[in-house]
């Protein structure tokens, strides 16, 4: 049996800079230019420069599948950024495909704690295909083999279908409704109006518009799906001693976790609500253990909303409410900026744009350092991020205002 001592790395590393490039639906600028802007912005917030950087990490997947990606255009990995930011003092780097950006951050934290690096930059770049995507996969009659022969003949051709299946089950098991989901989606849209970088900050969304929205895959409607964008986001990590001497206020990393719950055959488990809850529960339990806190200690929560129901699954898996209760928990102002649990205070990916969890991490950093402007929650000492959908690349971070 593995020994469990909490986490010796608690508060030893801090986020000392966070920046986001422009977030747009389409752009003439190369993706690499956006990453450069985000990385330099995050360094400058801390009063650091490229020559200080000794480690870099990213999660290179650009957000959609492209057969032969062009470096700097479709994706921005380590070699491209090392060349184009002229990084000459690197000692370590990582490109990891797990936990969305979570694994990269945890590896960066470990590289700092081990003494291998003192300043690490972690970025995420998102691009998109133009036009309406996910038109239903292969043409009828296309031949398939392997695990796909058990799904594609039945037309399970897009990720959104598996999310819709889990949400359908959730609705029916717990009596949840689209009108209840509207409360969360509309709340996030209102909060995004106080977030200058949010893509849809100036687009009002009414209850009627939500209820009459085009369905993508029942019961998921257009407004339950995050918005694919071009954009880049970066954070800067350093050790707690150095953090105290920098220009910015540090957000200490007090807990980390990554999903380790895997079932034998992933293809079937994508439908399974109970697997999502088991994966999320295990991820959350370890976050609370590493951070030495519990859900009642949290001042603000940024919970992944690539598809809106993922936020409900995280609320339950993390223990903010009981299983099957999230649809009721989020009603009556609970999740507003002045509510009992301010949630996705920047508008989430549904309104800010699909930054694959980096939007959530950057908002948590701003909330815990008092830099969230008009949407600042009062007296934030602890912010948490639960990233990814719980089963697919889930991870979590706890950020503290003090060490």
């Amino acid at each position, binding site marked *: 049996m593995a020994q469990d001592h909490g986490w010796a790395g608690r508060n030893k590393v801090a986020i000392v800079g966070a920046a986001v490039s422009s977030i747009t639906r389409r752009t003439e600028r190369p993706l690499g230019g956006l990453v450069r802007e985000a990385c330099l912005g995050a360094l400058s917030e801390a009063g650091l420069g490229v020559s200080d950087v000794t480690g870099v990490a990213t999660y290179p997947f650009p957000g959609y599948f492209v057969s032969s990606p062009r470096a700097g255009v479709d994706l921005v990995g380590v070699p491209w950024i090392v060349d184009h930011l002229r990084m000459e003092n690197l000692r370590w780097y990582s490109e990891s495909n797990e936990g969305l950006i979570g694994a990269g951050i945890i590896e960066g934290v470990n590289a700092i704690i081990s003494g291998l690096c003192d300043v690490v930059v972690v970025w995420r770049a998102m691009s998109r295909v133009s036009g309406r995507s996910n038109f239903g996969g292969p043409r009828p009659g296309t031949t398939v083999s392997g695990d796909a022969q058990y799904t594609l*003949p039945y037309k399970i051709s897009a990720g959104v279908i598996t999310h819709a299946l889990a949400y359908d089950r959730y609705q029916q098991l717990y009596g949840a409704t689209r009108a209840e989901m509207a409360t969360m989606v509309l709340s996030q849209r209102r909060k995004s109006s106080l977030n200058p970088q949010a893509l849809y900050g100036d687009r009002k969304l009414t209850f009627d518009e939500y209820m009459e929205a085009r369905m993508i895959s029942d019961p998921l409607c257009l407004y339950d799906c995050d918005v694919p964008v071009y954009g880049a986001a970066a954070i800067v990590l350093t050790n707690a001693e150095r953090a105290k001497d920098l220009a910015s206020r540090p957000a200490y990393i007090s807990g980390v976790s990554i999903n380790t719950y895997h079932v034998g*055959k992933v293809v079937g488990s994508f439908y399974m609500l109970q697997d999502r809850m088991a994966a999320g529960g295990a991820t959350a339990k370890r976050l609370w253990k590493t951070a030495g806190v519990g859900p009642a200690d949290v001042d603000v929560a940024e919970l992944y909303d690539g598809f809106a129901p993922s936020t409900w699954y995280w609320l339950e898996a993390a223990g903010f409410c009981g299983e099957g209760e999230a649809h009721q928990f989020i009603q009556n102002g609970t999740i507003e900026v002045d509510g009992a649990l301010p949630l996705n205070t920047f508008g989430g990916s549904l309104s800010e744009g699909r930054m694959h969890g980096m939007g959530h991490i950057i908002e948590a950093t701003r909330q815990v350092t008092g830099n969230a402007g008009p949407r600042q929650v009062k007296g934030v000492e602890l912010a948490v991020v639960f990233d990814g959908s719980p089963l697919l690349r889930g991870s979590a971070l706890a950020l503290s205002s003090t060490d």
Partner: protein
Amino acid sequence: VIGAVPDEESRELPFWSGAREKKLLIQRCSKCGRYSHPPDIVCSECGSEEFRYEEVSGDGRLYAMTTFRNVPDGAEQPTIGVVELNEQRGLLLACEIGPEVLAAGRPMVGDPAQVRFDHITEHDLWVPQFDFGGGQGDSEA
């Protein structure tokens, strides 16, 4: 009703070849008896590398359902179901729920499901599908 079709090699696997004889064959660990669908190579329960295919009852319950609507204008919007077989918790099979089933009323989570086998003439392929509640029986398409 079919999307992609299993290739020549795949359609000789027991799941598809069994359907030709109107049998639902699911892979089962020879050692511990755990069912795996899709088929596995090492049992995730006991580590055994020996499997056989066994005919199952074909009875289960609707686990979840969705209609995929993000298709080009005018294109068919498929309704996809997932059925949990009675043999084992979490033993899930996909199905497509055709308009003839939906016409009798939307099946709900937990409704009883019974396997049926549809013949896709164009591909000479038998495909396991499910009926809910009353049942429609096997069909030619």
